């Protein structure tokens, strides 16, 4: 019981520090690596919450595929370091203020609606197992599942068409 709480707090500190590191790194490659660390800790949170299938999907799809794509594009463009230029001075304090307002709203919700936020009970043995997720996915959520495949195909075709060099007008840009 207590060990789980300690694990939660250590992981929460790692996740928040990784998010802060992503925000304030000068180099975009470091930002991407911090974000991978954050995704990995969130995957461990999924394991703690009894969602092993989602945790594995998180590691393979997010930390694996998506972030490798990010690193690829950052290095392809050579856009690691964008030089900072003069910007309007009021934007950064205003952004900080708005973020604090957002946090305060969430804190208000947490502290006033604590009656619905119960303590987690130990789950059933097969809760969140790949079998039960698969059964749900292919019975109740079959149509959204198939629509997702069409969405992924459209995104793939769209990405290829967007990046393709135009052969006829390629030279005279």
């Amino acid at each position, binding site marked *: *019981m207590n060990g*789980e709480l300690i694990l*939660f707090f250590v992981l929460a500190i790692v*996740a*928040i520090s990784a*998010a*802060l590191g*992503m*925000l304030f790194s000068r180099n*975009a490659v470091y*930002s991407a690596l911090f*974000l991978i660390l*954050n995704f990995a800790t*969130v995957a461990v*949170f*999924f394991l703690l919450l009894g*969602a092993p299938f*989602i945790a594995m*999907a*998180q590691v393979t*799809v*997010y930390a694996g595929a*998506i972030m490798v*794509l*990010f690193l690829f594009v*950052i290095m*392809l*463009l050579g856009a690691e370091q*964008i030089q900072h230029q003069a910007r309007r001075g009021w*934007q*950064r304090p205003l*952004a*900080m203020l708005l*973020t604090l307002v*957002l*946090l305060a709203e*969430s*804190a208000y919700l*947490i502290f006033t609606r604590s009656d619905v*936020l119960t*303590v987690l*009970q*130990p*789950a*059933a043995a097969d*809760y*969140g197992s790949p079998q*039960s*997720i698969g059964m*749900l996915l292919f019975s109740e*959520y079959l149509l*959204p599942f198939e629509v*997702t495949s069409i969405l*992924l195909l459209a*995104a*793939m075709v*769209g*990405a290829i068409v*967007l*990046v393709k060099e135009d052969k006829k007008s390629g030279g005279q840009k």
Partner: protein
Amino acid sequence: MIPVSYYFALSAILFSLGALGVLIRRNAIIIFMSVELMLNAANLLFVAFARANDALSGQVFVFFVIAVAAAEVAVGLALIVVIFRNRQSIDIDEMSNLKG
């Protein structure tokens, strides 16, 4: 066991950091990564409440969110590559051609 409100607080902090990143950074790729951070915070809350209500549908929804995020990243990064090819920069302050 851990109360759900702890996960709620963690998710709120991560979401706010993502929103802050969208607001203060000028590099389009970093802004994109901040959006991923916000999606991830929402996923964490989905799984936590699915566990609290003993309903697996929340986990299925997170699965769909991950799939949509993958599609979004593919198209978004393609757009960034095309913009960089045309303007030699991905600073969002320079993408002001549509301004009236």
